């Protein structure tokens, strides 16, 4: 066959490097609806759910039982299930029906019913729903702060810059697991150097993550993973009950926690039980709610390559974000993993959360170049900062970020790097040289920084854990090294755990350490003229992008 130049050009487009697969329900490659998904049903006897989505109590797996016992309001179940799914779907979109009324109805429905409701909504209706159902009045954003070298100085500097740019939460992880305590400390210090009140976490193996939290080296946790089938839970050496205990362990020390789930994980683990991704994700979210978590990070997350490969997959991702909001959970809505070679496609995917606003639009945004993103790449990275700021300005949407100046960036990076250098010296950890500080402050990514002695760093990090270093030691080190203001900020962050208000749904802290959550600043959107609007000082801030034409220049 003679080749078409048009087709040849199209074949070379980035989008054609992405992975696509036909629907295959037997293996779970189906987004919204599988022929094997159960039909919604519930039966209550003597205050106990004895039938859930077509299954009798005797046939429950541990997820069904957990959901039936803890995640559905039994007193509401029969009344809520009597409302048709189409009616509930319409109420979600109807601006005259309040968030509160919907939460009440939804509190009594089953996972299969929830999936059925979401199937009635197109993406614009889902966005309408999210605009109303998001827990916190003002949307927020979260950053990933990582680098290929696990360089703690770069973590601190990028955290400071990220905080300055507006992120309310910052998350790190490691290339090499044993770097965790260094990364956690660097993030804790750096974030406060950029903007007071930013929350930080270190996503690592669960027991280590808990220990870092208990020691006050992190201020929240997110990586409590739940899955949609019993088999995948068991493969992860877990049950819904063990997750509930872990959640309680954090709560006992006053730490904010959210769970993590996302469609596609069961497919990737080879145990989807032939169910749709949406139905399985509904089960995850019910378990999250039943375990008493205030929130969830979901939206396919690290399995986005699977969800995005099937028809209606990106719609499903938005659908599962909405399910989280409908259950009254804080929703950190993913956008945190690269999944497409096409700039057009990756941007379109993010608009579904960006335009209505979610509690955290990204969870998170790579605040470093993607080659340094140790979550294997985020959907947006540091090189997209200005694009993102322009999108906010174009559409008058609050995406949680703000334009900054070069002077500000250098100043906060410098302070964060010097503070880490001082703390490492005070605590007797590996040396941070002046040359390293200098390189990091002016760097874009780890390709511009110096090599560290990894073996010595790891021994020093192990030693730090053995010595029982806590957040208070970091405060002391800062205070006695001339960083009084930073010391005070970190002490304030530790005090939050005693106050406990930031454990409320969708809580973030402002620069005065005041909580803004779904409880004290709830979303009150009910159509035009209501809810959060971008105006006043915030709008001025969003407008002030760099590279604006000055008429006097002509």
């Amino acid at each position, binding site marked *: 066959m003679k080749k078409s130049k048009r087709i040849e050009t199209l074949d070379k487009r980035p989008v054609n490097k992405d*992975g696509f697969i036909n*629907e295959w329900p037997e293996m779970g490659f189906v987004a919204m609806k599988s022929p094997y998904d159960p039909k919604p049903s519930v039966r209550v006897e003597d205050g106990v759910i004895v039938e859930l989505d077509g299954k009798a109590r005797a046939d429950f797996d541990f997820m069904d039982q957990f959901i039936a016992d803890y995640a559905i309001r039994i007193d509401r179940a029969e009344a809520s299930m009597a409302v048709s799914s189409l009616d509930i779907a319409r109420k979600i979109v109807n601006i005259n029906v309040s968030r509160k009324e919907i939460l009440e109805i939804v509190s009594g429905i089953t996972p299969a019913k929830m999936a059925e409701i979401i199937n009635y909504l197109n993406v614009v209706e889902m966005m309408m729903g999210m605009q109303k159902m998001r827990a916190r009045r003002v949307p927020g954003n979260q950053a990933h702060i990582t680098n290929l070298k696990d360089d703690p100085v770069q973590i601190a500097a990028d955290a400071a810059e990220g905080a300055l740019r507006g992120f309310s939460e910052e998350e790190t992880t490691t290339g090499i697991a044993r770097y965790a305590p260094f990364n956690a400390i660097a993030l804790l210090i750096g974030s406060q150097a950029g903007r007071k009140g930013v929350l930080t976490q270190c996503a690592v*193996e669960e027991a280590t993550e808990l220990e870092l939290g208990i020691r006050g080296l992190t201020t929240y946790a997110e990586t409590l993973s739940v899955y949609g089938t019993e088999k995948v839970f068991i493969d992860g050496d877990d049950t819904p009950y063990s997750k509930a205990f872990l959640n309680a362990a954090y709560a006992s020390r006053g730490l904010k926690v959210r769970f993590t789930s996302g469609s596609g994980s069961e497919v990737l683990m080879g145990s989807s039980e032939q169910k749709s991704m949406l139905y399985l994700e509904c089960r995850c979210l019910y378990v999250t709610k039943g375990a008493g978590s205030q929130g969830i990070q979901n939206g396919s997350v690290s399995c986005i390559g699977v969800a995005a490969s099937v028809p209606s997959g990106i719609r499903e991702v938005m659908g599962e974000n909405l399910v989280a909001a409908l259950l009254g959970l804080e929703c950190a809505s993913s956008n945190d993993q690269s999944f497409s*070679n096409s700039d057009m496609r990756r941007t379109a995917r993010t608009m579904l959360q960006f335009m209505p606003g979610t509690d955290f639009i990204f969870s998170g945004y790579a605040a470093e170049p993607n080659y340094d993103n140790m979550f294997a790449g985020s959907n947006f990275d540091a090189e997209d900062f200005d694009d993102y700021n322009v999108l906010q300005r174009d559409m008058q949407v609050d995406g949680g970020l703000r334009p900054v100046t070069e002077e500000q960036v250098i100043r906060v990076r410098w302070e964060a790097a010097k503070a880490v250098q001082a703390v490492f010296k005070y605590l007797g950890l590996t040396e941070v040289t002046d040359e390293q500080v200098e390189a990091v402050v002016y760097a874009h990514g780890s390709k511009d920084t110096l090599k560290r002695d990894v*073996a010595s760093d790891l021994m020093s990090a192990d030693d730090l854990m053995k010595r029982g270093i806590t957040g208070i030691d970091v405060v002391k080190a800062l205070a006695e090294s001339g960083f009084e203001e930073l010391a005070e900020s970190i002490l304030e962050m530790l005090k939050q755990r005693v106050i406990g208000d930031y454990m409320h749904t969708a809580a973030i802290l402002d620069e005065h350490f005041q909580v803004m959550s779904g409880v004290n600043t709830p979303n009150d959107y009910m159509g035009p003229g209501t809810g959060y609007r971008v105006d006043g000082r915030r709008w001025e801030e969003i407008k002030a992008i760099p590279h604006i034409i000055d008429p006097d220049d002509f």
Partner: protein
Amino acid sequence: MEINEELIQAITRAVMKEIDKNGQSGGGSLTGKTRMMPKTSYKGYPQAVKGSDPKEVVIGVGPAFQKEIKATITGIPLDDVLQNIRAGIEEEGMVSRVVKVLKTSDVCFMGLEAAKISGSGIGIGLQSKGTAVIHQKDLYPLSNLELFPQAPLITLDMYRKIGQNAARYVKGEKVTPIESVNDPMVRAKFQVKAALMHIKETEQVDPEIPMIEWGKA
């Protein structure tokens, strides 16, 4: 011959039965296909036992290794992968042994199972798609000494270094971990393929026969 509704149904049933038997449908549609490969039975294979040689590093390979899957996600033959890891271990003066883990297809658990029966307490987990981990018997399952999560980026030279580093942990040396590699586009390019390969591997999981000796290399 009269073609009626009944006959059409009978033919459809016969065809569907044939499809089910083969576990695949001939055309482009995947609907109805419930397996990727028939299950291999390892009944009668020697169960893996705990080693006593303190120089030993055990490599625990995945259930489909060198059988249903013969090359990594980027097409590196698994024979070569194993040969390089073993060479790395031996270059450091340690001894290698290969077992096939059948109870799980999770790389961390595979690595931990291998470490638990290793005479030194150090093991390597190796999935058929190429993902690898260096594990130690007393660590949490999802923790590790070194993890190489992005299989598409691992080269034969890196597999050799993985063997070398595992051996160095046995010797109690101050080990410099292999430098992290990262490709932020790896998910877009490989995740569907990774899912299919993992399904293939998970199909071969057999909880009845947890681990067997896998001398073949």
